[in-house]
């Protein structure tokens, strides 16, 4: 799968409370959640984001609450992929389980840079800056979940 879009860049320790504040968790409706995605850290997020864009951040992205509403809100808002120097572990597994692509990379990315990710070959390209990096593949079991289309589909496929 190839993804292209521009980067919206944030800092370290972006927690799930700012990705989707608890005051909106009285619904599990993905579209409603997406409407408020990231608003406490960037009130213009919904305006700036075009479908297919990337979110790029520093270390420990998605720390804090286990709320799966966070990756769900990002995915439904149109984010194609989250790139971070590291991910908090619950966000990491939630993203894989629901089929939101994530890449661990320390690539130098500035707000607005045009990016391309090739998930099959494990390459990330910063078109704006002319840089390219490869990222390590997921472990075989996680690849099975991703290839199945998420954890529920992997269960249906008899993988657990």
């Amino acid at each position, binding site marked *: 799968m190839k993804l292209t879009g521009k980067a919206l860049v944030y800092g370290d320790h972006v927690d799930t409370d700012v990705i989707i504040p608890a005051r909106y968790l009285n619904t599990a409706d993905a579209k409603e959640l997406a409407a408020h995605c990231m608003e406490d850290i960037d009130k213009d997020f919904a305006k700036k984001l075009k479908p297919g864009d990337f979110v790029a951040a520093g270390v420990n992205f998605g720390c804090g*609450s*286990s709320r799966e*509403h966070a990756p769900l809100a990002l995915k439904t808002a149109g984010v194609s992929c989250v790139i971070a120097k590291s991910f908090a572990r619950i966000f990491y597994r939630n993203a894989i389980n629901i089929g939101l692509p994530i890449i661990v990379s320390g690539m130098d990315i500035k707000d607005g840079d045009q990016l391309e990710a090739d998930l099959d070959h494990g390459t990330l390209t910063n078109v704006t800056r002319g840089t390219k990096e490869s990222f390590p593949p997921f472990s075989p079991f996680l690849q099975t979940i991703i290839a199945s289309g998420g954890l529920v589909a992997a269960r249906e496929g008899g993988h657990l």
Partner: protein
Amino acid sequence: MSKMTMTQKIIAAHCGQETVTPGEIVLANVDMVLANDITAPVAINEFRKLSNPTVFDKEKIALVLDHFTPNKDIKAAEQSRFVREFAKEHDILHFYDVGQAGVEHALLPEKGMVTAGDLVVGADSHTCTYGALGAFSTGMGSTDAAVAMASGKVWLRVPEAISVVLTGQLPEYVSGKDVILHLIGILGVDGALYSSLEFSGDGVRALTMDDRLCVCNMAVEAGGKNAVFPVDDATRQYLTEHGAAQPVVYAADPDAVYQRVINIDLGALKPTVAFPHLPENTKTFDDIPQGMKIDQVVIGSCTNGRLSDFVAAAEIMKGRKVHDGVRCLIIPATQKIYRDAMHMGLFDIFLDAGCAVSTPTCGPCLGGHMGILAEGERCVATTNRNFVGRMGSPKSEVYLANPEVAAASAVLGVIASPDML
């Protein structure tokens, strides 16, 4: 001869392997799956996408309505009803509604639903609390919970470990909260990422079970997968008193491998406060400016909403008044804690002081209801997170502290240590 940590041994026992290696991904059998009124609706939606949506064991699923309850608004009421109907449809044994419920991570140990050696997963990040009982427990998402409810299995990456060696005894006005805040201050909020925190040392004996539950509760705030205490006489007594199943005791191999060893002299700890907006921003009163005015105090949550927390707060509050202009909220974490605190006369002390006493709820801890902060307001809370907007306005501030510090702050109207009274 294996070289496994306590956590690795519990995971190995739950995936039918003699040994496991850090970084390895295993499919483990779960002893309990937990979800609440926020995470269960998403889990139930995923569960219903399965071609065979039946639960693997109706006695090994816990559904607790605790976050936005008593229902804060119509949508929250719909979510509670959705979970309630699911629990009825599948005859879930451990379903707790308003009147029986409590904050989940205080409720499960109190009801004896977790024992030493168990593997527990929950769609709530603070599920790591039960490591205090000698169990492996960790938080995950709703889809994980959905599949675990159906299959009884979960995928786990076997964690590396950080050893935390405790020595000495806690001084006055210092408790489990200060131990974990101090440790998060050392590690940082991602210092234990993907790792287990393995506690040991003579100092373990000096910690009450409530202290240990509080310490394990906040392991996730250092990025940890789980935290675990060795099983001792205090653990066994607690499990027996609460009617838990017979413990299965695992101990680390003497040559278990740790990425890092951290030594903490409990006797050297001081009351510790985490400043906004990360739990790693810890300070002691040597460095906290005097006269930092506050608007609200919250004493409660899965971190510090247990009986000993209210006993400690009441000792500070007795015969004193909450400062003018400060709201002080007392939120016992379970119905039993509520009743015990009431029978001990603690509510009289709190009510005489001018506190508001609430029924159990997670409420303000996550900015749900029952104590939301306005722009510019400052709160001292015994809760677990001080992120931007955590308790309300993105321009409010939360300071994390132990119950004695919270009570002293309520009385003095500023962030204060009990010895300043």
